[in-house]
């Protein structure tokens, strides 16, 4: 009992930290976007102050800056693209991740063609990666839907979005490779 109490005391600062992080994100965009212009990137788009940007994506400092700024800048959606929202350094590495997956596929395809690995192993490897991609994308996607629908805003949301995007790159590329592997059966799906 004493050990449990000690552990709880040790965990207290961490719990407090988590709760304060949650509190600081209470009125923020679940996608982590900043100054998201009309019509917004999600169904939760809210613009009560009528400045053309989602209120959830506006921090108190950015809103104060907007108010203090010159009037002609208000509602100028062209100056606030999605790229601005990513100014905090979120990079989804689409091309590098795609190139790495395709490179790995070409390598395994070459090894299979040269007879270094069996067809069953080659297919098994890519089916496993595809399943992993689907499971990761599906799980993080469902988490995002629940978080957005239930208006749950935590510090974890941006990282869930990030991993949803990364897993979806694996899923999409691996699905296209899956179609390549099973090209003959795939052609029959259009012949009823």
């Amino acid at each position, binding site marked *: 009992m004493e050990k449990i109490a000690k552990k709880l005391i040790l965990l207290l600062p961490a719990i407090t930290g988590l709760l304060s992080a949650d509190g600081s994100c209470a009125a923020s965009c679940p996608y982590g976007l900043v100054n998201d212009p009309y019509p917004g990137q999600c169904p939760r788009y809210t613009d009560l102050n009528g400045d053309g940007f989602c209120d959830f994506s506006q921090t108190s400092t950015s809103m104060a800056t907007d108010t203090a700024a010159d009037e002609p800048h208000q509602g100028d959606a062209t100056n606030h693209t999605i790229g601005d929202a990513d100014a905090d350094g979120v990079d989804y590495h689409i091309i590098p991740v795609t190139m790495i997956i395709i490179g790995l596929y070409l390598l395994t395809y070459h090894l299979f063609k040269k007879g270094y690995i069996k067809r069953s192993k080659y297919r098994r490897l890519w*089916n496993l990666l595809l399943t992993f991609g689907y499971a990761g994308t599906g799980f993080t*996607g469902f988490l995002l839907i629940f978080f957005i629908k239930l208006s749950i805003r935590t510090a974890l949301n941006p990282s869930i979005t990030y991993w949803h995007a990364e897993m979806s790159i694996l899923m999409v590329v691996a699905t296209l490779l899956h179609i390549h592997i099973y090209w003959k059966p795939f052609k029959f799906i259009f012949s009823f």
Partner: protein
Amino acid sequence: MGLVNRRWHVNLWNLIIFMAFIVSGIGGFILLSMLEYGVKAPFNHQLLYWHVEAGVGLMIITIFHFHYYKGSIYRVFGVR
């Protein structure tokens, strides 16, 4: 009953999963590319909506896909 044979049934669901993948997977890839390169289009909101809807469908149809290819799934995970 045997009104439709297995091949027809599998082909039908493969076609449905393929269409769901086109909307959700390729649609999501387009959205991600637009987000990455700062491209804003008027259809973003609709594409995001259909990406989510088709994504939910895709996840459910994937379970059906596993069901009718369960022999392959067992082999992939080394169950048999």
